[in-house]
């Protein structure tokens, strides 16, 4: 941590920030700050010292320098849709919100690249690229709101990660304002930049290495044809088996998503209703895309695999309207949960895909054991689970059970060979659980990278790394390391 600021340098901070962005782009009254005391993870709150809205790289640099002078840390923020408390203003930090840096500077159609600012909303880039027959592949379910800067920080994935990969596979270069206020460019469009793969290291670093102020990303040609299938199963285990069968057959669908029974019912009771059978045990959405000639055979193959695992119905969307309807069941799921309880805890953990049936059974058992309403919507092809717990934050006992069940779920996933987050990040939510996956030496190696960029730990403090470390005794994975490589 930076040395504790004295009161006078701190009181000089707000005027210094205002000198950079003007009064109207600097919030500092308690009422104004209220909105920024948490991100999508509402259980973790902290009031920032101020929230500033830069519009240029130079302004970001000047803001960072002002924070340094005052000895106050700072936190980059995009749209605040993060679900792991990554944009939480720990240590009275100043929030540097990049949502006004919204220019798509350049779309190079021939070379299939775009240069964009961090505040560009994910879906807007694909909208801009569409007339050129191109799109930006990483598509988090929050893509209508979240920003590309937030995506880079979280290495965001989405339903189409199975085929297209996560954000790191699509970012070629970054402009980064370092915690000392300097601005550097990492990587380049050529992919042959000399030296270490810095872009790879910064993507997914959760805003702890600097503030991204511009990026060069790869665009993909829009596939010739897209087909979406919906298979209806008696239970979630059969749906998981069908996923295994599809992948083992050598098919690479664009998406393989499972929605369980409780979620189906919540969706059907809500405005997102998609006409799903309320008594179905689970639905599997399969999306196939590629050259026109390839898809007929693939559709037939997927249908065969699903039926082999007992799917009663396997429907192919007849048109765009029906396709949208299938996806609405998946994408509307989080919204629909809002009907079940005031709060929703969206977990995010990964297991080897083949362990899905066994882990899901354990996850449901954990929900029952803690007397909680738990439902599952997940990226089955990647083994990326989202067990969602509906609860009421005002009930302290229930809140405690939610936390305890969450920890039990993470332990179960790690024991099955998995990790504690597949796309939402460690943030402040899971910083104490990262020791379930990594030992002291592993975390020390990560700290070495941190030290290269942010030796004083002023950039987004309190994230990723444990504040209280688990002891090795209570950490079954750490003990197993020397025998089996990563379990």
């Amino acid at each position, binding site marked *: 941590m930076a040395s504790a600021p004295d009161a006078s340098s701190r009181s000089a901070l707000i005027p210094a920030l205002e000198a950079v962005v003007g009064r109207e782009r600097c919030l500092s009254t308690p009422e104004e700050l209220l909105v920024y005391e948490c991100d999508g993870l509402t259980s973790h709150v902290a009031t920032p010292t101020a929230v500033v809205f830069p519009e240029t790289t130079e302004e970001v640099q000047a803001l960072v320098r002002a924070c340094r002078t005052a000895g106050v840390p700072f936190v980059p923020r995009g749209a605040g849709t993060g679900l792991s408390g990554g944009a939480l203003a720990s240590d009275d930090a100043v929030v540097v919100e990049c949502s006004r840096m919204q220019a798509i500077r350049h779309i190079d159609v021939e070379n299939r690249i775009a240069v964009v600012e961090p505040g560009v909303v994910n879906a807007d880039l694909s909208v801009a690229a569409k007339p050129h027959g191109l799109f930006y592949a990483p598509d988090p379910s929050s893509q209508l709101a979240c920003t590309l800067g937030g995506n880079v920080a979280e290495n965001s994935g989405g339903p189409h990660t199975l085929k297209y990969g996560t954000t790191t596979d699509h970012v070629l270069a970054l402009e980064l304002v370092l915690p000392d206020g300097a601005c550097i460019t990492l990587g380049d469009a050529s992919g042959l930049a000399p030296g*270490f*793969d810095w872009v790879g290291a910064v993507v997914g670093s959760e805003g702890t290495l600097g503030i991204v102020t511009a990026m060069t990303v790869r665009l993909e040609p829009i596939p010739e044809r897209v087909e979406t299938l919906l298979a209806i199963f008696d239970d979630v285990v059969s749906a998981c088996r069908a996923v295994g069968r599809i992948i*083992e057959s050598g098919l690479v669908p664009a998406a393989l998503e499972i929605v369980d029974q409780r979620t189906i019912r919540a969706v059907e009771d809500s405005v997102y209703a998609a006409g799903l059978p309320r008594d179905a045990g689970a639905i599997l959405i399969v999306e196939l895309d590629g050259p026109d000639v*390839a898809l007929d055979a693939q559709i037939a193959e997927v249908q065969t695999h699903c039926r082999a695992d007992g799917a009663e119905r396997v429907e192919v969307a007849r048109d765009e309207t029906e396709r949208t309807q299938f996806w609405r069941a998946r994408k509307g799921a989080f919204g629909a949960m809002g009907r079940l309880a005031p709060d929703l805890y969206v977990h995010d953990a990964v297991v080897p895909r083949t362990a899905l049936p066994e882990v899901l059974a354990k996850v449901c058992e954990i929900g029952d054991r803690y007397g909680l309403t738990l439902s599952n919507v997940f990226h089955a092809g990647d083994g990326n689970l989202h067990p969602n717990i509906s609860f009421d934050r005002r009930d302290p006992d229930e809140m405690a059970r939610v936390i305890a069940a969450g920890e039990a779920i993470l332990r179960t996933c790690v024991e099955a060979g998995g990790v504690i987050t597949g796309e939402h990040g460690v943030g402040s939510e899971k910083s104490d659980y990262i020791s379930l996956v990594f030992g002291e030496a592993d975390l020390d190696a990560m700290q*070495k990278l941190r030290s290269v960029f942010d030796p004083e730990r002023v950039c987004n403090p309190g994230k990723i790394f444990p504040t209280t470390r688990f002891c090795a005794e209570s950490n079954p994975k750490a003990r197993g390391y020397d025998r089996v490589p990563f*379990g």
Partner: protein
Amino acid sequence: MSPSAERASVSRLADRAGARWQEHAPVSFGETSVAATWTPSDADEVAHALAASAELGAAVLPRGAGTQADCGNLPERADCFLSSAALETIDALDASEGVCHAGAGTPLARLQAAAVEAGWELPLEDAGRGSSLGGVLATARLTPRAQGFGRVRNVVLGLEIAHANGTVTRCGGRVVKNVTGYDLAKLYLGSLGSLGVLCGAWLRLRPKPQRVVRLESDPGTETASRAVDWARRASVRACAVREGATKAGAAIELAGDAASVAADRDALIAEGLQEAEDVDLFAHPAADGHLEFQLSFLPTRWPALAAHLRDLSVGYCAWPGLGVLSVQFDADAERAFALAGEAAAIAEGRWRCETPSLAGERDVFGATDAESALGRALKAQFDPAGVLNPGRMAGRL
């Protein structure tokens, strides 16, 4: 360090290594040479070897099969090789999951064969060189099938690394989607063994293609410009185009589902290509004494770049789907580096010299910008005593 101090440290290393130390005929790297190899038998022993070297200030060159032993800049100092030969294991190959774990010393060909036997394909290639897994990951070289396979960075899920401070760490994991902590694997890949020694890796396999078809074109300069469009067809896994004194033309490999491959095959045959048993996707080996460079280019700069190289009458092998080519200049080092710089400027790309022993004092990566300041800081964190491949990385780190 003075030569006598160096000898002293080497003999003390030999004491520490015991039976795992072997002296042999010297292998030279520019001014320095190495005459002993330390072959630890597991990751902990690798870490101990590195810690001992750091303590004695001895410079260690990690080594796999040695097929690219002098890649990167020539090392500034060298006391011994640290061989991964004893880290040859295939610990896990999960046929239903499509992932595997292997030790760094495992020959890539052996791992590839095991993957195929399990019904999958390992998306890394060594073109019959006998490379080790660790060497392929440490160099993270672009090879022609990267167009279909993805780059080395897309294939690696997790790594175990031995460090100069005597620890062994892991990063990443065995699952395909993972944002738990920093993605340190990206830094180790392509780091030429300058941050630590790779001991093992979890890799992602890919489905075996239903059909593979290889095609080649007749020699002709027109080929070069058309190949850029050919390379963008959906099922193209690799595309190489060559122009030069002895050979010219394009070589293409299609792979994937049967229907897409058949469609692309027919389309390319209609453009005048022929099916071929075998095609050569790799550049010709560098002629002795010629400086070889790898150049990157933006697709739109291709016509200008190809015309420029034709004017210079130099041969090249390009992979237009990846935007990279390799070219040899028959000129003294100063002129060759200048020519590479000119070509890269036309290409709006980068250059890298692939023949370090001919490069003299020059940094083969042509690097010294803001990134090497970061690189120095990173090297200082992971290898403060400067014992791992000193001087080899870009910026002579």
